[in-house]
């Protein structure tokens, strides 16, 4: 880093946001000439690193709980926090499978799984899994389905299991399903079946970089929105 050059923003972001955020940052750099450096990892890891003094400027969590946890510890500035992005939960199957099933209360998911598995993030720890459990519970099929759950460390692993036919179905985010050609969306979970899937963004308490807030604002710019939507995210109404 040459002297005088402004220090780049260090952005701690959930790994699943990688493609979209990289594209936005590239756009921003083209416009402003300023760089953003990302450190992608699980939200939990990022939160703990901030706690132990990580020099991050921005934090994007894939998980409400870790955003709250960080806020409690005064690691992020509450006034800057906003749920910028929203995602949808979908039921997927391998692209070459013929399975057809409509999501509805009490739908016959367990029967459709048979002796195979339903792959999703770990309900106890991975947000996608948590949402999946919530939705299935609300639809009244969790008890039948839960013994057939294959929970994974992250959504990508669940995606791979379905793509390779190891698991017959999977529950993942719409964004993930969209990017993986070997899987097919069977149906989308109704919005009311689970809490909104949101991605909280915030400037960290430790940040001294004035660009942090600027870039956070840029993430809501039309350019950024276009990129996010292309990736399959839906945009939150401002400020909620």
């Amino acid at each position, binding site marked *: 880093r040459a002297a005088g050059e402004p220090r780049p923003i260090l952005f701690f972001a959930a790994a699943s946001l990688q493609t979209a955020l990289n594209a936005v940052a590239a756009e921003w750099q083209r416009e402003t000439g300023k760089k953003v450096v990302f450190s992608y990892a*699980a939200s*939990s890891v990022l*939160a703990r690193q901030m706690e132990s003094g990580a020099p991050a400027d921005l934090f994007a969590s894939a998980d409400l*709980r*870790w955003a*709250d*946890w960080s806020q409690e510890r005064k690691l992020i500035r509450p006034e800057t926090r906003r749920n910028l992005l929203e995602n949808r939960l979908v039921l997927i199957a391998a692209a070459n499978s013929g399975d057809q099933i409509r999501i509805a209360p009490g739908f016959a998911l367990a029967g459709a799984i048979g002796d195979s*598995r339903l*792959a999703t993030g*770990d309900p*106890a*720890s*991975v947000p996608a899994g948590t949402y999946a459990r919530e939705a299935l519970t609300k639809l009244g099929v969790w008890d039948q389905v839960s013994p057939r*759950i*294959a*929970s*994974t*460390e992250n959504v990508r*692993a*669940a995606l*791979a*299991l379905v793509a*390779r*036919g*190891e*698991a017959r179905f999977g529950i993942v985010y719409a964004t993930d399903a969209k990017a993986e050609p070997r899987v097919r969306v069977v149906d989308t979970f109704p919005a009311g079946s689970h809490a909104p899937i949101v991605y909280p963004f915030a400037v960290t308490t430790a940040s001294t970089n004035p660009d942090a807030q600027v870039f956070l604002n840029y993430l809501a710019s039309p350019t950024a929105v276009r990129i996010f939507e292309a990736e399959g995210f839906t945009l939150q109404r401002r400020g909620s």
Partner: protein
Amino acid sequence: MEWLPFSTAEWVAIRLSLRVATVAALTSLPLGILVAFVLARKRFPGKALVDAVVHLPLVLPPVVTGYILLMLFGRRAPIGAFLEQTLGIVFSFRWTGAALACAVMGFPLMVRAIRLTMEAIDPRHEQAAQTLGASPLWVFMTVTLPLAFPGVLAGIVLCFAKALGEFGATITFVANIPGETQTIPSAIYTYTQVPGGDEGALRLSVVAALISLCTLVVSELIARRTGRRGVNIE
């Protein structure tokens, strides 16, 4: 066992982990010994390649190893399908798959330990056995292997310990199904992913550490009884 501070799920994970680690360490042993012997004693073209393949699980991130396992031993995968049809062995989403993942991850460690002791054996011992009429196989069984015992023991311990801690490849290959594939490290990981899970993670970490301590003490005792010169045959 109610007086112990573990939930049922945790007990299940502990028991499963012990089973997976034991099976992983013991079933990979014969192949480990064989590969170690070949690498220690033979020269052949492509030896470096074999060596590299053995080391691969060490070099690649566990997640990648997990994917590779999935691509080879999954139900729909060539080897996996073959094994299921011929021998009825299924790895995917079974504890056997967890054991396979752990075995693969521990394999480089096991092979290296055994190989190192084999390389340290004075070849004159093997020559002496030869002159006494022992064929190469018998020399291997009665001299090389017993003298390499410290390495075999260390290999088992390393593989066992690795299996207690292995998580990336396991969870990628066979997911994290309580009672079937959720081992201690998977459970710990789950705890670390939720705020406030620290206490549970710590508890299980201590368990893992204690198990490995026991293993080490036992192996140390065995090693002391057998002595520097390998296992004593009567």
